[in-house]
């Protein structure tokens, strides 16, 4: 695949596996096994069956009528919010738990920001009866409290990450430290297309079901397989990569990735990685990250815990650098307004992460026949508190 990973784990200048030797055996085992396992007939059968009967796939492609009228184009929502557990994160969690079992692992660890990946991981661990430990930044535990309770109810242990900015980046550090100390029996279910190779490729493959379905559904509904625009929000970039995946080689399709500008790109409180970042190494891969001149990682900010991350996956860094996808950003205020608009025009309360993608519609100009697919990556239940506070309901 033209935009895919090479056999050394790189996408152009980005990717690789910058990990301490302690993680090498685990990551190497994954690298050797993941393609074999996920192409195995038995794996495919179980994965497909769980996606269908447990997650509820295929997720609908819904033509958002009032959004379409408002923006003057055919706007489609790919309804990942209707998945079991409420977001796209479950696709990857199912894939990785099946893989972990086939690798003989007895214990699962994960990091989480918004808590959606933590909930998805706790869910699949309950499903398979496997011990689950989720690392979550202390700040995020507060702003996504309902998800903390959900994870506990599902039987997972939630460990607060207390270092640094106490958000997603620090939760990822803690998960990596745990994995270093448990090199034999533990599998780390990374929640996005980040981390050392093969994670970015593996997670992208598990999420690629989003665009595989969307292509088929578009053809059924519009008679055309290819839309003019495909849009998604980017934290680490897994819902975006899943939404882009089967459109990457269709160069006519415009790919739009929406980052979190926080209080504004130049405010000093932002998570707009491609605007503020430079090339470097974060969490095991060479990518673009927000950092000081001295190479210290900058603590990002976004109201949305799932986008509050100082880097992006290496494949995104590549797509950005070669201009295959357009990277833009949306502020907290714009996202929250778009969340309200979607609630009141379409009866769908989106996750604040997702609302960033919706908000960018305001900045685009369409032709009336344009087909636009937006990944509705998650639902907003977890964010009600934040919405309520902001709008004073």
């Amino acid at each position: 695949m033209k935009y895919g990973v090479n056999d050394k784990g790189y996408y152009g200048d980005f990717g690789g596996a910058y990990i301490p030797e302690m993680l090498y055996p685990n990551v190497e085992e994954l690298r050797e096994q993941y393609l074999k396992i996920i192409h195995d007939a038995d794996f495919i059968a179980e994965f497909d069956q769980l996606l269908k009967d447990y997650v509820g796939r295929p997720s609908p492609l819904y033509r958002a009528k009032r959004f379409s009228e408002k923006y003057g184009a055919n706007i489609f929502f790919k309804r990942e919010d209707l998945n079991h557990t409420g977001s796209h994160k479950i696709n990857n969690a199912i894939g990785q738990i099946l893989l972990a079992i086939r690798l003989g692992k007895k214990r699962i660890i994960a990091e989480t920001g918004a808590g959606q990946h933590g909930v998805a991981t706790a869910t699949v661990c309950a499903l398979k009866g496997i011990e689950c430990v989720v690392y979550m930044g202390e700040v995020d535990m507060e702003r996504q409290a309902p998800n903390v309770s959900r994870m506990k109810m599902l039987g997972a242990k939630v460990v607060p990450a207390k270092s640094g900015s106490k958000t997603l980046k620090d939760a990822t550090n803690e998960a990596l430290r745990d994995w270093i100390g448990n090199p034999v029996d533990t599998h780390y279910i990374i929640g996005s297309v980040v981390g050392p190779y093969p994670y970015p490729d593996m997670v992208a493959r598990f999420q690629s079901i989003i665009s595989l379905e969307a292509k088929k559904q578009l053809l059924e509904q519009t008679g055309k397989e290819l839309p003019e625009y495909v849009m998604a929000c980017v934290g680490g970039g897994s819902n975006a990569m899943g939404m882009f995946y089967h459109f990457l080689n269709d160069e006519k399709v415009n790919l739009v990735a929406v980052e979190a500008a926080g209080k504004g790109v130049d405010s000093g409180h932002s998570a707009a990685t491609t605007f503020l970042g430079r090339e470097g190494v974060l969490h095991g891969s060479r990518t673009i990250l927000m950092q000081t001149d001295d190479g210290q990682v900058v603590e990002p900010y976004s109201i949305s815990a799932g986008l509050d991350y100082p880097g992006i996956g290496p494949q995104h860094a590549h797509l950005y650098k070669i201009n295959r996808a357009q990277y833009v950003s949306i502020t907290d205020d714009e996202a929250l307004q778009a969340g309200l608009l979607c609630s009141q025009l379409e009866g769908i309360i989106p996750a604040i992460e997702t609302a960033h993608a919706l908000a960018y519609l305001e900045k685009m100009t369409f032709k009336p026949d344009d087909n636009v697919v937006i990944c509705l990556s998650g639902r907003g239940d977890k964010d009600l508190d934040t919405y309520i506070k902001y709008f004073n309901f």
Partner: protein
Amino acid sequence: MNRLNALFNKKKDNLLSIYYTAGYPEVNTTLDIAEALERAGVDFLEIGFPYSDPVADGPTIQHSSEKALENGMTLTLLFEQLKDLRKRITIPILLMGYVNPIVQYGIERFCKQAAEVGVDGIIVPDLPMYEYEAMYSRYFIDNNLSNIFLVTPQTSEERIRKIDELSNSFIYLLSSSSITGGQLQVSVNIEDYYKRIKAMQLKNPAIIGFGISDDKSFKKACEYAAGAIVGSAFVKLLGTEGYLEKIQGFVKSIRF
């Protein structure tokens, strides 16, 4: 041949190395600490340059890194401080830190600077072998700097051979797969692992690190390797009042 090679040629056992984070607890005592350690008889030193996200480190070194960054320590400042290194210190010096600050500084510039001030080797825990060979090794070689690789009980024999081939001073042996600041692991399996390494007759000596905190663990490590490295336990000492005066006693408590 650099100072590290000269040391290992001369001395084959009971080697003691100390790690500390530059800029902790005070920004300007980097060389004062080094001097005190040399005077106390330490064989070689690892000076850490701090990073915001040290994934291979436990709470003690995380804390020292955070404080050092708050104190304004940067690679630029560290090289500034090390200008007088070889006027004051004769023992071998390694720099230890994560790859991203090096990438930002520029790998070529980093290696040149290190060699210029008289550094002998570099330890970058998150710079793996493939990336080192493909993109970094020529700068190390050009500047006569040793690159130090880590080996854990899970590292395969084939990989250890490859590491031995790429190394030209010593191999950094971990007593277990762990972050810094833990305990020295002693068990039948670990003894087997040390014996397995010894039986491989590597061309480079092995030095054991991570989990060496006192005379007992130091002595134990020296049964299996040419020496050992103390990190977190020393960094803890640096966090106490009057730390410069305590260095002599600390080193004596580890190795009489």
